[in-house]
């Protein structure tokens, strides 16, 4: 790390205990090569590079007006020492480290390579990054495209005190909430973990005609994360995930906030008038149950937490207050920065919102995260 003196950005934050649920680790594929066990895979990746992510063809520099990589706008830190310095600058006391956008596994081909990369990432994470004594924790990457491999990762590192959550993506290609992943959900619950999911980056399906018509960053950033989160939440609820696993919960990072009430109550609307196909979902066929145990909205508020970045509440004070209430902010918000990406947040907004009182501030900064994450005591 550079020899720059650490100067906290906002003095007010020093008075609070702050947990960041979305701190990115910017390692590249090359960093993982030494950890890749399969010689064939390692040799191919070393010689020819890693599989590329499916690209929707956006050039973010057009939108931002500067030529840079928006995944590294705010710097770089790849070791526990470097991460610790950044945390001091942000006045973050504990951070949950997640892969940066180089690792949106669900959207790439070559499942064996993806599995090897996920495994190597976890090895790197445990060896060079996490440090529970300094509040640097890991979201353990758990492959869902290969359930056996995912179980293997949970077996390898799931009990480590520096692992506080199972990590996956809120994707457009696989539903982690699918019944095929129930062995993973069971193991996550058995380990007293929950899931932390991150969007796959603001990328759309390049084969979609709808996506083909989008050409602005605003279109991409608004719709991709949010729509994927909506798909994910609705799928999990209506396929009985939380009836089977009532202790399972999700943190959705960078997935948006404002659509939660819409999802919750729109589900109630349609479920109440047309619930009779719930019994055809795999979990309900196995259990013999016909319907959900509760109204869909109840699952939303009980089982989902949202990383607050990017915070985008209304500027109008009255509307802002209504949003916080409608979003059940005191139960759902977990503070997140998204460091070092170009859309990151710092703790300042939690102080400057006149509708956030001391109690809500504590809930957002750390109390909700302490409920959902298996943090070391």
């Amino acid at each position, binding site marked *: *790390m*550079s020899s*720059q003196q650490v100067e906290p*950005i*906002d003095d007010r934050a020093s008075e609070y205990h702050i947990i960041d649920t979305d701190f990115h680790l*910017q*390692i590249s594929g090359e960093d993982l090569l030494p950890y890749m066990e399969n010689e064939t895979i390692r040799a191919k990746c070393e010689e020819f590079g890693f599989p590329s992510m499916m690209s929707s063809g956006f050039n973010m520099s057009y939108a*931002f*007006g*500067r030529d*840079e990589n928006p995944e590294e*706008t*705010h*710097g*770089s*830190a*790849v*070791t526990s020492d*470097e991460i610790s*310095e*950044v945390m001091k*600058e942000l006045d973050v006391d504990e951070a949950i480290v997640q892969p940066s956008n180089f690792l949106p596994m669900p959207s790439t081909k070559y499942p064996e390579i993806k599995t090897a990369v996920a495994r190597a990432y976890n090895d790197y994470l445990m060896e060079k990054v996490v440090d529970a004594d300094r509040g640097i924790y890991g979201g353990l990457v758990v492959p869902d495209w290969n359930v056996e491999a995912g179980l293997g990762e949970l077996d390898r590192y799931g009990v480590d005190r520096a692992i506080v959550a199972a990590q996956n993506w809120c994707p457009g290609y696989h539903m982690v909430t699918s019944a095929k992943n129930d062995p993973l959900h069971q193991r996550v619950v058995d380990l007293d973990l929950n899931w932390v999911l991150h969007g796959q980056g603001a990328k759309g399906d390049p084969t979609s005609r709808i996506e083909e018509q989008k050409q602005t960053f605003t279109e991409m950033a608004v719709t991709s994360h949010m729509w994927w989160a909506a798909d994910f939440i609705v799928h999990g609820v209506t396929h009985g995930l939380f009836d089977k696993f009532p202790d399972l919960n999700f943190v959705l990072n960078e997935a948006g906030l404002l659509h939660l009430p819409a999802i919750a109550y729109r589900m109630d609307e349609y479920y109440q008038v047309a619930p009779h196909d719930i019994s055809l979902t795999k979990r309900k066929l196995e259990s013999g149950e016909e319907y959900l145990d509760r109204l869909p909205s109840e699952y939303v508020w009980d089982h989902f937490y949202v990383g607050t970045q990017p*915070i985008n509440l209304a500027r109008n004070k009255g509307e802002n207050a209504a949003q916080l209430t409608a979003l059940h902010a005191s139960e759902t918000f977990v503070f997140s920065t998204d460091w070092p990406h*170009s*859309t*990151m*947040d*710092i703790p*300042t*907004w939690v102080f*400057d919102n006149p509708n956030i009182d001391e109690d809500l501030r504590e809930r957002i900064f750390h109390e909700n995260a302490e409920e959902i994450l298996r943090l070391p005591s």
Partner: protein
Amino acid sequence: MPTHEIGTIQEFPEGRGTKVEVSGIEMAVFNIDGDLYGIANTCPHKRYPLHRIGEPLRLSKARGDADQRDRKVRGLIDTESCSIQCEWHMMEFDLETGTNEPTGLMAATFDVYNDDGVVKVDL
């Protein structure tokens, strides 16, 4: 209009911002080729501070980034257009008017000047 002394010119290095508080007002002062510009140290977008614009980015030594010759800086200072880009989300503000052209959002600007080596601001 009261005039406040806020430091010597040496305390306001070229090519970056410097945080100053005057009469309860926190501002960022930018030195662009010797010309001084004061702007409220609160980006109108999300009210995050502006004063670190121009500072070197915190880069990883382990990754070799810290040794790059073209070391990156926080945000951007455009000396030709006399504008800054906020380090947080890259919104651009004219240092003369404090305005972000695409949105009309505006940060207050202040008349900061060098008076024979003493930097002053009129409030």
